[in-house]
């Protein structure tokens, strides 16, 4: 019977630990953050989440926001919805004033709850494009270019690259065959009609490691002038290699934001194999930003090396973008309350809608979040693989903004 008793003991220890779950202190401002470090998108989460934490750490080391420290509650949900729901309820119970959602299904499942609980949630780079409509979804903030904005910007970029005229050109859309992959289709089809280019869709079935047929079709039969590559996970790496194998110039292809990380380039065999490949970013890539130097200095002052996650600049910087915008919104909320830490989700929502010209020296786009536009303008920047890294080849840009806005409104 010994093991029964020890089992009971273990159970009671765990139960006691549960009861002791620490609650936030009064002068802290709590931020809830979902993360995926162990699920199918762990290649993103492993770098994105440390970026978030490091920025918060930096701000806290400078005295926090008007003297209030920020406490981040991170919960890893393995890209599964039930743990994501549990995480949200935990954030709410701990008094979080803002929630960083991670994952498209999670965003959709949480939207009604955010609304009824009046807690703003952010979904940078995923979720539904229609969420940019702040009037319809007051508590959902994409805070980065949605898939529609990305699609429109990709067409704009193609137009610029092909000499300013798209009439009669052929654009191939290579996409991962899931809802997120199909999301930009309506805007692409609309633009094809407007600009008079021929759009052909090439679906890659999950898990996206086999696309020989599609790429051969693009390169040899369809003979695309430009390729918009909207793939995830392992698929971008495969597409880079297949394109090269079929003699297609990588500079005639642009990868949307989830085909744009260092890991995608490494997966294709390193920088040398991907020379010329264009990628779209909603946060600056590379490590040439003052705020990153500050974080490095902070670690150095503690006698530690800068975290190795910083080397994966694309995802790390996106985590930093989310943290920076969250803290800016909180700062706006605290200032609006005259410096009090007693702020609600509603205050933070209003804080978000006041964010203007906050770029941290170029790592963030010059977004302007308003009551109507929770996307902040749909800014992206195109980088190109040159040498051993990403080099920016455009300024912060957006394409066909009026078309996108029209579509968001009518959705």
């Amino acid at each position, binding site marked *: 019977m010994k093991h029964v008793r020890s089992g009971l003991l273990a159970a009671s220890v765990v139960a006691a630990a549960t009861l002791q779950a620490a609650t936030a202190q009064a002068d802290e401002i709590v931020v809830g953050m979902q993360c995926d*470090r162990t699920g199918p998108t762990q290649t993103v989460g492993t770098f994105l989440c440390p970026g978030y934490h490091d920025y918060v750490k930096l701000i806290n080391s400078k005295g926090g926001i008007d003297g209030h420290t920020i406490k981040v509650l991170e919960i890893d949900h393995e890209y599964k919805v039930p743990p994501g729901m549990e995480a949200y309820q935990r954030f709410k119970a701990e008094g979080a004033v803002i929630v960083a959602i991670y994952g498209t299904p999670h965003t959709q499942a949480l939207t009604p709850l955010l609304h009824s609980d009046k807690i703003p949630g952010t979904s940078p780079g995923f979720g*539904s494009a229609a969420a940019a409509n702040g009037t319809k979804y007051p508590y959902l903030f994409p805070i980065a270019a949605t898939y529609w904005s990305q699609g429109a910007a990709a067409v704009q970029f193609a137009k610029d690259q092909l000499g300013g005229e798209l009439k009669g050109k052929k654009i191939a859309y290579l996409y991962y065959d899931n*809802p997120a992959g199909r999301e930009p289709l309506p805007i692409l089809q609309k633009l094809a009609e407007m600009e008079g280019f021929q759009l052909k869709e090439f679906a890659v079935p999950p898990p996206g490691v086999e696309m020989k047929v599609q790429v051969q079709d693009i390169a040899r039969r369809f003979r695309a002038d430009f390729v918009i590559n909207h793939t995830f996970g392992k698929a971008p790496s495969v597409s880079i290699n297949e394109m090269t194998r079929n003699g297609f110039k990588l500079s005639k292809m642009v990868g949307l934001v989830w085909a744009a990380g260092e890991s995608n380039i490494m997966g294709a065999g390193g920088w040398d194999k991907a020379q010329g490949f264009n990628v779209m970013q909603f946060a600056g890539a590379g490590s040439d930003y003052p705020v990153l130097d500050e974080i490095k200095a902070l670690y150095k002052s503690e006698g530690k090396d800068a975290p190795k996650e910083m080397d994966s600049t694309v995802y790390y910087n996106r985590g930093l973008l989310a943290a920076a915008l969250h803290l800016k919104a909180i700062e706006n909320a605290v200032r609006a309350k005259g410096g009090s830490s007693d702020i609600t989700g509603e205050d933070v929502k209003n804080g978000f809608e006041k964010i203007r010209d906050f770029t941290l020296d170029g790592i963030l786009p010059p977004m302007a979040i308003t009551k109507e536009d929770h996307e902040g303008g749909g800014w992206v920047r195109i980088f190109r693989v040159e040498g051993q890294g990403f080099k920016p080849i455009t300024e912060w840009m957006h394409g066909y903004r009026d078309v996108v806005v029209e579509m968001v409104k009518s959705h």
Partner: protein
Amino acid sequence: MFHRESGYYKTTYAADMELFPLPITKAAIVVICVLFFGLFPALMTDYYISVINLCAIAVVGALGLNILVGYTGQISVGHAAFMSVGAYTAANLATRWDLPFWITLPAGGFMAMGVGLIVGLPSLRVKGLYLAIATLAAQFIIEWVINHTPAISGGVQASIEVPRPSLAGWDMDTQTEMYYFLMFFTALAVIGTLNLARSRIGRAFIAIRDQDIAAEIIGINVYRYKLLAFGLSSFYAGVAGVMYTYYLGIANYEMFQLPISIDYLAMIIIGGLGSVLGTIFGAVFITLLPVVVRVFMETVGVYFVEGVYLAQVIAQMRLILFGGLIILFLVVEPEGLNKLWQNIRNYFRVWPFSH
């Protein structure tokens, strides 16, 4: 210790047929009902209620899988797909025709049952691993069909927002109201399975599981009952999918992918195959494990790991513990948590004596 199990004589058929024959079980059921329908929702905060809600949904889904795997001995790795069938059926009915939940919920169940019956057809010819692969195929086919049929999936996003369930003008939108909603169906599912297991059908299932040739010889129509098991199991899955849809307010096929099917298998294996109580244990265990591991690490882990790395350690620790516990259970107690509970119960039954 507290009660005696002997000395109760059954004098009528009705008494013999009772689900809970002993007074102590009846008392226990009353206590459980008071706890779950009275005290818990009244005393607990929203957070704990929301955790119980997730467990309740998992219990229904796991019960369905246990009917198929635990009672009938057929394997299925496409359970989550049947949940998605139920979810989308209910979501479409609720949004297109504004049907109330008491129609959409059984409708979701029956639709899943229909699909389950078709998927169950290979079980008439193949067994074991081969059947596992056949159901795996079903998982992918159903996923693909939902994903590529806008009429079902509601467009590019493949997700449909559903309104909150309402009963006679009463919208159930808080966690506590949803708790009653979910708990009602969970209780129904538990009682249903308990009764099923001791009915003719349930005994036929068990006979098929134990030795299908022998079952056939004693006059059980193996084909019919195997199909029935698939149908019933899918019905439960469909209902769980509908509960899920109403709870989250959205039907989305990404919530019902292969890893979820595997999770459900893990639930019934850890809980105990062919046992209702075990199913409840397993469903609660798998749902709570990440939560408990995290809270444990947050309280204890801080003494071992530095703040910045804690999040990473917690995330990895959960996977390690999850895998480790499954192996531990399979080795130490292959009959699952249910057997563990029985050991405890048997110990206290005669306590303080050893026999």
